[in-house]
């Protein structure tokens, strides 16, 4: 875990989307949460959002193959910003499914469940592509109370 900036707290994780990477990433987020003294609920929600976003990078952007992933967590006094960057094929932001909650098992569509969890746990979720640099970013923000 690297703290890259003295003013605002910035933590960076870099790794490959290989077997066991989610466990490493979870440990990183847990460490950041402890350093920032996040309460249990907020930490769990951030872990959930990062886990879902990282899984999407691995499964969709890299189609299950190994690829580079960077996770940057920045925190000022009342907001946490998490940014995941991958260099895979990316997902067209407009094609990210808009999930919905249903009460009936028969009409349940499980596609987009991860995105739903990201949107439910964070205050803002944004998907973007920087085509020239071949980068795909997921930027998520969470207000800290």
């Amino acid at each position, binding site marked *: 875990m690297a703290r890259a900036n003295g003013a605002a707290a910035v933590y960076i994780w870099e790794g490959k989307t290989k077997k066991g990477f*989610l466990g490493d990433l979870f440990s990183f987020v847990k460490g950041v949460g402890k350093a920032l003294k996040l309460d249990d609920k907020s930490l769990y929600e951030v872990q959930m959002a990062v886990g879902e976003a990282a899984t999407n990078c691995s499964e969709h952007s890299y189609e299950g193959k190994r690829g580079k992933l960077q996770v940057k967590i920045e925190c000022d006094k009342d907001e946490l910003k998490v940014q995941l960057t991958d260099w895979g094929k990316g997902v067209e932001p407009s094609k990210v499914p808009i999930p919905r*909650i249903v009460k009936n*098992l028969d009409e349940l569509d499980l596609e987009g469940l*991860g995105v739903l969890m990201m949107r439910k746990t964070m205050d803002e979720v944004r998907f973007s592509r920087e085509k020239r640099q071949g980068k795909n970013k997921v930027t998520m923000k969470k207000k800290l109370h």
Partner: protein
Amino acid sequence: METTEKAYKRYTILRVSGRVDAETAPSLEKQINKVFNKGQHHLVVDLGGVDYISSAGLRVLVTALKKTRRYNRGDVRLAALSIRLKEAFQLVGFNKLFQIFEEVEDAAGSF
């Protein structure tokens, strides 16, 4: 993630512990299908030892629920969820799909 299976006459209890994420969920699915393949569709999933569940884990449980309720073959009932896990189910409304019990014994006794 680890699973332990205990088979009884009327139901099977599957105790799950650790982290259920995209990497471990396929193993949970395999364990559940193993129970179904034995003809048992009354399943209690004891989540007391689970500290984290992702969408992949939730997907496995909902898929199992759909399989058991098809043709009224049985049910998947959940037990011993931590507060964080309960919140994960509530986030996506899955707490309304499952019967959830505080105690494993109560879930088992409901069959």
